[in-house]
């Protein structure tokens, strides 16, 4: 997935950067980082790396503590959570 069609500017370089960052593979990360730097500049690369890193932590907090989604958010997002396959994540838990 490249992010084309998302409507979010520069998704085409930001999403591959996120994918590479989570791999901890410097050979993947370097070109992805270079693409963000070339298109958006250093400050944007730093802030993109930061939010990727922050959510790589906070997702683990949610999953390691069993914190449930708030009922109102679950109700508001029920349709697209099903459409995106997010509900299938629950079935994989052990």
């Amino acid at each position: 997935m490249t992010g084309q069609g998302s409507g979010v500017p520069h998704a085409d370089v930001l999403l591959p950067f996120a994918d590479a960052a989570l791999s901890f593979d410097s050979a993947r990360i370097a070109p992805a980082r270079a693409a963000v730097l070339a298109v958006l500049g250093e400050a944007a690369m730093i802030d993109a790396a930061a939010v990727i890193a922050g959510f790589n932590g906070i997702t683990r907090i949610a999953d390691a503590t069993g914190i449930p989604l708030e009922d109102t958010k679950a109700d508001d997002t029920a349709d697209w959570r099903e459409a995106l396959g997010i509900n299938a994540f629950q079935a994989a838990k052990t």
Partner: protein
Amino acid sequence: MRAELELSQQQAWHRVAAPGTWLTGAERVAIAAETRHALDCPHCAARKAALAPLSVPGTHASLGALDAADVEAIHRIHTDSGRLGQTWFNGVSTGGDARYIELVSVVVVTVAIDTYRSAAGLPPQPLPTPLPGSPSRHRPSGARPGPGWTATLRPEDVTADEPDLFREHPGPRERRGANIHLALSLVPHSMIHWWDCFEPMYMTGPQMRVFETEYRAISHAQLEMLAARVAALNQCEY
């Protein structure tokens, strides 16, 4: 690096080395080291590739400083967090729910800082030197069960014995509106440790809700897109 980001990460990394509420500085640094080590664990790799991770026999490749239950928790949280369930939690014995929460906080601070530095092309921070001292072993008197697997401390149950974990002062409360704010609250100093590290990486709660102002070099929409991507890659249901 943005000055606020650099300062917050330096502070968060130093706090790993200090005695916590349930863990010594040496134990906390050992948890950080084991967190890094998990990425090279063959048992974790085999489990990650399996449809049923708990069906895979074997033991973790560990550094040997922590007991097996701590290692299991650290490795699973780092390498396969999206498939953690209550059955697993109930079976992992890490010395009580509060000690577990503090362990989680050290793991996630380590993961976040290491992810940032790796993504930004910076070398990993050397492990800090543990500081002497004893854990306080203070459990908030207002803690009660739920909404997750451990007890939590709700804002309305905070007493004068606790630090300002929800940023109530000077007001209005900054850390509010989502269950995720409660997740580490059983150990207030661990909650503060995490959120003081996380908010400069993302935004504070109030900043998140002001869409007409951009606080970072990328937009709210770009930040949220990246957050959603990471959540999806980690199979995070929340």
